[in-house]
């Protein structure tokens, strides 16, 4: 009896470190998964993870870039922050691409980096990198913990900042002496103190009124739906609003799924590789209502020709986005969902725009997306349609960057929100496959397909180990054209077919590669085989890699060449 009491006494007073406190704080924030990679400066944190291993899941990736893209995929699907832990120096610098990607695409991440001890910061100590300076321009905010007493407040603030307002990445740099400090007392009940940070969620009623009054006056109204609609979980409200007033909807690349693509009001994606109908609607409209899109240049084309006849209303949670690229007559700083709810109440009268809808339907019928099906091989567009069919259009689709990304956007008709993961703003090759892993971890029951290029896949394929180890049934489909396809396309079209360093003359045997990781692999190079084996491969209870050989010469069309306006699309019809 006595011995037992003594043991109990011992555990409850076992020394607790700054790192233990950090893990406790993460648990209090509801963190269930850590995407991490250890190293010298985070050894104390890993020791705390060891002690807490029954209460928190840590997933060891094989490269810090892979793990942070996985955290982005997780964040995109759940809306919860992806939590990343990396070591100082090279661990931290390996995270830089992912942090920038999350900043560009407004994804909530809380990234903990180890740092050398406070006593040697600034001395070029072993594995010291000035990650604060490096990440200042690529984070929503960053902190270096200066005292363990600040840790509870900083962690709370970091999660708050990452997930509220316009989401984004927050870096917390933790010196090693702080994570290893033995704590004597801990004050955890702290309040966040952010007087300079008060995101606006509720729209100004005057502006809502102004917009409501403009709607019935419009003859050619169009809605642009961006990722902001998805961040605010407002697809239902958006759909109700568009249907109530019968206003056609264009989505951005990152807004795919925010409005059902099969709705008669849907015009599809706008922009560089958008549909003719969507781009002509943006060009000809007299009222453009933008919900949560930041008027990126891939969407707008040459700004001189963007919505030149329109009154522009822009609903965005970030005031700095309004008027940044496009002059805006009705600025509305608000959460998309809150604004839509107000508009559903306020905007009573609908526009009379039957003719406009007819015209746009005519465009849709006359200039649909097209490709020439070549029976001698696999057309990549057809491949995407086949994937759509086999997955009932219900999979979570993550892509890498390049031609396959555009084809996935064009041909995997997204009817539901939160099914689409892609790197839009930074266009990061190597993003797709690890992002799919994060999505599969977030949504174990869903079919998750990673549609990747043969070049981009080779940038982060080491994470095959993770899907094997955890038996994550991600389906990897390599759209293998033996080329840096998007680069090859631009060289063919814009550089007079001077194909400079954009062909991959050697490739690994992807099937053997998969097998060497313990994963089922298959190579498909003709239509028949695809039709017969794709359903079975996709139904396989575990991860699969499919090396799908597609026609190299295929190009993404239609297209707006750089510098051109929305009305100057090329490749809108077969030649």
């Amino acid at each position, binding site marked *: 009896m006595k011995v037992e009491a003594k043991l109990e006494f011992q555990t409850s007073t076992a020394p607790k470190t700054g790192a233990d406190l950090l893990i406790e704080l993460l648990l209090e924030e509801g963190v269930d998964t850590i995407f991490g990679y250890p190293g010298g400066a985070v050894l104390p944190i890993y020791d705390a993870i060891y002690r807490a291993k029954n209460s928190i899941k840590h997933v060891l990736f094989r490269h810090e870039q892979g793990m942070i893209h996985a955290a982005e995929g997780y964040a995109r699907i759940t809306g919860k922050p992806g939590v990343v832990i990396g070591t100082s120096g090279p661990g931290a610098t390996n995270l830089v691409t992912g942090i920038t990607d999350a900043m560009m695409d407004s994804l909530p991440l809380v990234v903990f980096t180890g740092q050398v001890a406070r006593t040697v910061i600034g001395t070029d100590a072993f594995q010291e990198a000035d990650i*604060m300076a490096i990440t200042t321009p690529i984070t929503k905010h960053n902190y*270096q913990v200066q005292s363990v007493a600040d840790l509870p407040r900083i962690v709370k603030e970091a999660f708050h*900042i990452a997930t509220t307002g316009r989401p984004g990445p927050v870096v917390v740099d933790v010196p090693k002496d702080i994570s290893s400090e033995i704590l004597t007392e801990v004050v955890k009940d702290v309040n966040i103190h*952010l007087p*300079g940070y008060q995101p606006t969620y509720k729209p100004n009623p005057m502006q809502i009124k102004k917009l409501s009054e403009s709607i019935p006056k419009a003859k050619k109204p169009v809605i642009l739906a961006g990722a902001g609609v998805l961040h605010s979980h407002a697809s239902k409200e958006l759909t109700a609003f568009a249907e109530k007033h019968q206003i056609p909807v264009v989505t951005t690349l990152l807004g795919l799924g925010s409005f059902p693509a099969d709705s008669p009001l849907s015009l599809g994606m706008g922009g560089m590789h958008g549909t003719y109908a969507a781009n002509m609607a943006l060009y000809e409209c007299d009222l453009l209502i933008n919900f949560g899109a930041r008027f990126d240049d891939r969407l707008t084309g040459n700004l001189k020709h963007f919505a030149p006849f329109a009154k522009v209303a822009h609903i965005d949670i970030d*005031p*700095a986005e309004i*008027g940044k690229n496009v002059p805006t007559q009705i600025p509305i700083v608000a959460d998309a969902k809150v604004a839509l709810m107000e508009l559903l109440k306020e905007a009573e009268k609908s526009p009379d725009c039957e003719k406009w809808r007819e015209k746009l339907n005519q465009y849709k019928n006359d200039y649909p997306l097209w490709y020439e099906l070549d029976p001698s091989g696999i057309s990549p567009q057809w491949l995407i349609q086949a994937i759509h069919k086999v997955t009932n259009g219900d999979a979570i689709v993550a892509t890498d960057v390049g031609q396959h990304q555009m084809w996935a956007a064009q041909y995997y008709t997204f009817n539901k929100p939160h099914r689409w993961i892609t790197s839009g703003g930074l266009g990061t090759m190597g993003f797709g496959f690890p992002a799919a892993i994060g999505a599969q971890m977030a949504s174990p029951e869903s079919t998750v397909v990673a549609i990747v290029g043969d070049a981009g896949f080779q940038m982060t394929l080491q994470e095959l180990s993770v899907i094997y180890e955890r038996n994550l049934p991600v389906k990897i489909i390599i759209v293998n054209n033996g080329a840096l396809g998007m680069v090859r396309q631009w060289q063919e079209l814009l550089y007079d077919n001077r194909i400079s360093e954009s062909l991959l003359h050697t490739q690994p045997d992807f099937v053997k590669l998969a097998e060497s990781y313990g994963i089922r692999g298959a190579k498909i190079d003709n239509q028949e085989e695809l039709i017969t084996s794709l359903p079975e491969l996709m139904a396989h209870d575990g991860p699969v890699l499919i090396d799908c050989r597609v026609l190299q010469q295929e190009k993404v069309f239609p297209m707006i060449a750089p510098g051109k306006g929305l009305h100057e699309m090329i490749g809108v019809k077969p030649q």
Partner: protein
Amino acid sequence: MKRIISLTVQDRSGVLNRVTGLLQRRQFNITSISVGAAETEGVSKMTLVVDVEDDQRLEQVTKQLNKQIDVLKVSDITDKAIVARELALIKVASSPQLRSEINGIIDPFRALIIDVSKDSLAIQITGRPDKIDALIDLLRPYGIKEIARTGLTAFLRGHQPQTTELSASFLLK
């Protein structure tokens, strides 16, 4: 166009870096910047003089600054009733014979001689930058050895006459 932007910021490490980095990245030229403690503990005041092409760019820079978590308040005070001062230290070559002549020059500027050596004088002047520029021009013939300027610091006067609001202000905190 030159604009005077007044910033109230949390006195946290990295905030200066964030502000100057942002201006550089968004391609705004900083003419001068001055920083110091404000009336509240833990809060600093920064005065920026920036060169901006047009109102739209100006609006963008103020919004981007406002977005920073540690920035509490941003105001473009160029067109407001303000008091604005800069301090400059000017070291001029001078023999004892020239001293009274130089005194005569600086006197109307209410500048002070704060250090004297065998062959030079140190002059302190406070005022608006154009006034400082004017004095420097007058002293140049004597041989200027060194100049150190603080950059402009400024705030609003106690009383503001009614003026039209800036186009940018509708979205500012």
